[in-house]
Each structure stands twice: as structure tokens, then as C-alpha cells.
């Protein structure tokens, strides 16, 4: 198989199963996916189809039973400091201030970096996401949306090449979520990273991503891939334009196929 020269994340025929008492439970089935450098790829699919497994494989927290995961033309066999992660649960450390929480990855990845420089970097990111003035607060003093902003800062503070987001906006209310989508766009404009976003929200995928991968029901394989042909700098209104509405309808249709509620059509197989 040839590797596209600008591929940052590449999954090659990845198959994975969990061992359970009732025998192996296959979650990923011959899944191949490529994300080019700097691209933003959203992964959608039915509940429990193995999306989170996918993130753990890319992050090197697990190794696939079969197939390979490549990051920047390097085979992933263990976690790499060039990866950043954020989850639905912000998992901030309650005994640290927001600033110290954001600085945490630097303590692991860049222990030789001067303290002042680490702090400057963290402050800069907090400023970018609108958390200026909250640096010395504890996580328990912040709202859910603010905690998630801090968590995003932490995931990119060490300038990762690959950012893995596992439903980071899933637990937020609709308005806060839309705010954070915009924050995400702002961060992308400033920070060069290749991103994989796991989400259940089709609007979110259309608004944020350059390409959208629809996974089938478990065991997941790549069912459908959509290029999002919208300007990079998109206002929220774009979601109400015919083009976006069409994309949403197609994605919804694909999800229904994945759920087994609609028959696969000829186009989807292409």
C-alpha cells in the first residue's frame, strides 16, 4: 500500500476485538482511514461502534490485533508525546489551578523548558480561549464549558502534531457547545495540528471538519467518507445554507444505514 506523502494519521486495515467472558467482541473490522497533515477529520457513527477504541489506538494506548497505525510515517507502538488528547470529561486535576492544569503536559514532555516559558505558553492559550482572569481558579470554581476550554488548552499546550478529541463537547448545552465550536476554529487558526474528532453531533462535524468519516455499526469499518466543501473560516450561519443542509441530510442517511434502519444505496457503496 502506498503512503500519501502528506498523510499525518494513517490506519491500515485495522482490526481489533475485546476479550470478554463470552468470547472476543470485535469492534473494528478492517478499518482504513487517512488524515492528511493539518486536516480536521470528524468521525461519526452509531453509539458503541468503536469510535473511542479508535482514539485509543491512534494515541498508542492500545495496539490493534491486526493492521497498523501510522503517525507521520512512524509506526505507532506506544504513546507518543506528539499527541494531545481531550475527552468528554474534562478530567482537570482538582488540586491544581487552571494554569497549572494547562501546564501539566509540559512537565512530562518538556521538563527542561524554563518555568516562565511554560507559564507564558499556558497563559497565551488560556487567553485564546477566553479564560483570561481564571488562571488561578480551581476547576471546581468554573462552569462546565470553561472547564472544557481549559481541557482543550491542556491538550494542545505541548504543540502536538496530532490532536485527538473524543466527544469533548458532548456533555455541554447547545449554546455553550456552539461557543466552543468557534473557539475550536480560533485555535485551529493559531495552532497547526492534525485533528481527529469523535462526535455524535452531525452539525458539529459539518461545522468543524474538513472531512467526515462515517463508521458502520460494530464491528466498525469505514462506511462513507465526505469532504466538507465549505470555506475554512466559516461562520455559524453556514450551517443553515442549502449546501450544509444537504450534507447533513446525507450524513443522517448514512447513519441510518449504519444503524440498519435504511437500505444501503448504490451511491453509498461508492
Amino acid at each position, binding site marked *: 500500500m502506498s503512503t500519501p506523502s502528506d498523510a499525518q494519521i494513517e490506519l491500515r486495515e485495522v482490526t481489533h476485538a475485546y476479550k470478554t467472558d463470552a468470547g472476543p467482541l470485535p469492534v473494528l473490522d478492517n478499518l482504513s482511514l487517512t488524515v492528511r497533515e493539518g486536516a480536521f477529520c470528524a468521525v461519526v457513527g452509531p453509539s458503541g461502534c468503536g469510535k473511542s477504541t479508535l482514539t485509543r489506538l491512534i*494515541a498508542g494506548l492500545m495496539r490493534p490485533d491486526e493492521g497498523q497505525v501510522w503517525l507521520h510515517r512512524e509506526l505507532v507502538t506506544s*504513546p*507518543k508525546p506528539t*499527541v494531545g488528547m481531550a475527552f468528554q*470529561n474534562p*478530567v482537570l*486535576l482538582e*488540586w491544581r489551578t487552571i494554569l497549572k492544569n494547562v501546564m501539566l503536559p509540559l*512537565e512530562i514532555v518538556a521538563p527542561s523548558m524554563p518555568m516562565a516559558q511554560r507559564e507564558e505558553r499556558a497563559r497565551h492559550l488560556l487567553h485564546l480561549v477566553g479564560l483570561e482572569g481564571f488562571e488561578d481558579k480551581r476547576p471546581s470554581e468554573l462552569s462546565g464549558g470553561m472547564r472544557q476550554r481549559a481541557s482543550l488548552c491542556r491538550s494542545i499546550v505541548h504543540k502536538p502534531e496530532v490532536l485527538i478529541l473524543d466527544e469533548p463537547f458532548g456533555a455541554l448545552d447547545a449554546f455553550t457547545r456552539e461557543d466552543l465550536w468557534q473557539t475550536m476554529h480560533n485555535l485551529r487558526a493559531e495552532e497547526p495540528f492534525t485533528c481527529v474528532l469523535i462526535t455524535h453531533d452531525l452539525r458539529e462535524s459539518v461545522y468543524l471538519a474538513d472531512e467526515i468519516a462515517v463508521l458502520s455499526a460494530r464491528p466498525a469499518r469505514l462506511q462513507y467518507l465526505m469532504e466538507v466543501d465549505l470555506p475554512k473560516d466559516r461562520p455559524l450561519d453556514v450551517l443553515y445554507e442549502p449546501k450544509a443542509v444537504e450534507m447533513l441530510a446525507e450524513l443522517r442517511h448514512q447513519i441510518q444505514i449504519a444503524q440498519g434502519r435504511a437500505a444501503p444505496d448504490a451511491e453509498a457503496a461508492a
Partner: protein
Amino acid sequence: MNAQLRGFLVPVVAIVIFLAFWEWLVWVNQWPNYKMASPSDLWPAFWKFKELFLIYGWQTLWRTVVGLLLAVVFGTLLGMVMGFSRVAREALYPILVGFNAIPKATVVPVIALMFVGADNMNTVLIAFMISFFPIAVSVSIGLSTLEPEYRDILRALGASRMTIFWKIALPKTLPEFFGALKVAVTLAFIGTNLMEIVEPHGKGLGHLFDSGKINADYPLMFAVLIALAALGILLFYGVVLLERIFAGWAERGQT
């Protein structure tokens, strides 16, 4: 009234009311002091034996603290082993529960026979044995229930297990640890006194209590009880102070 002053005054007033009620109860029932000594009988008893109270009180205190420190070290290590390894947890739990179920008053003579004459060590040993259990259990639960995401945020960066333990697992377990330590400190104190009273060896407040009993000095016996209560309070609030310093973040503001 500011909160600090209130935090001090309210308990003090409560103690004064309690003592007044006690005095009144004894007076109104005309109880002789061998049935129930009144607070006004206690002070002379304290004063008469003030040096003994200091000497014996210190012996009880240091042996309790040393036993507790041993329990902290051993309990934390045991809790770490059980928290990180499922096999160790499954293997050790029944043994620990069985060990904890044995009333320590029955262990006291056994230990006293095992190490005849080494009374300080025996006392420390009982204080330790009675108090490490809650610490081990709470540390193991704290570590084994750590949400995988907490581990993953550092593991995904290639951090070692030791780094994850120091930066995440250990601080996250501190509130549970201090909760257990509050139980353990009282238990250790009970352990010390058990040894002092069941196997008298001329040391500690337990010994002073025993001499009160032998000499039919009832106010002295009651005075020892009060001294024990005071020491217990001192130890407990010592732990609370440590908790404020090391795990104060776990306390939420009342909003």
C-alpha cells in the same frame, strides 16, 4: 460575629454547658464520687497528680503517634499494592478482613507474651495493628477507582507509571486517605490504651487509670478519662490540620 471567632466560641460554650449539666446531675442526685465524680472533683485530682498526668500523657501520646505513623506507612504501601493489582486485592482482602475482625483485646496478651518486657514496642505494635486497616482499604479503593481518563491524559504523553502515581493517583487519593486517617488516629489511641490497661507495665495514662482503680481514687479515674478525651481531641484535630494543608482543595466553598 466573624467565622473564626464563632468556630472557637461555639464549641467552648458547648463544653461549658456540658460540664455544668454534669455537675448539676451529680448534685441533684446526691451521687457519691465512687458512683459518679463531678467536674468539681476532677480538678483537685488533676492538680494533685499533675506531673504524673504530663509524664504518662506523653507516654500515651508518643506511642500512639509512632503506631499511627507505622500504620500510615504500612497501610499506604499495602493499599498501593492492592490498588494497582487485582490479584493482590483478591488475595489479601479476606486475610485483612479476618485479621481486622479479631478483637484486639485478645491480641494484647499474645503480643505481650511474644515480646516480654519490650513494653514500648508492644504498645506501638498494638496501636499500629488496630489502625492500619482503614488506611490500607481507603488507599486501595482510591487507587483502584481512579477513572481511566485521569491515567490516560498522562499515559498518552508517554509518562511512566511512577510519574502518573506521583502527579495524579497519589494526590487524587488524599481526601480518602485523610478520611481514613481520622478513623485510624482514634483507633491507634484505643490500641495504646488497651495495652496499657490489659497488660499493665507502669506506663501511660492507662497505668494511671489502673492505680486510681487500685487505690479507690474515683476522681482520679474520671480525671484520666477526661485527659484521654482531651488527648483524643488533640490527635484528631492534628489530623484535621494536616488535611487542611494537604487536601484543602477537596473542600468546596459553600455556594
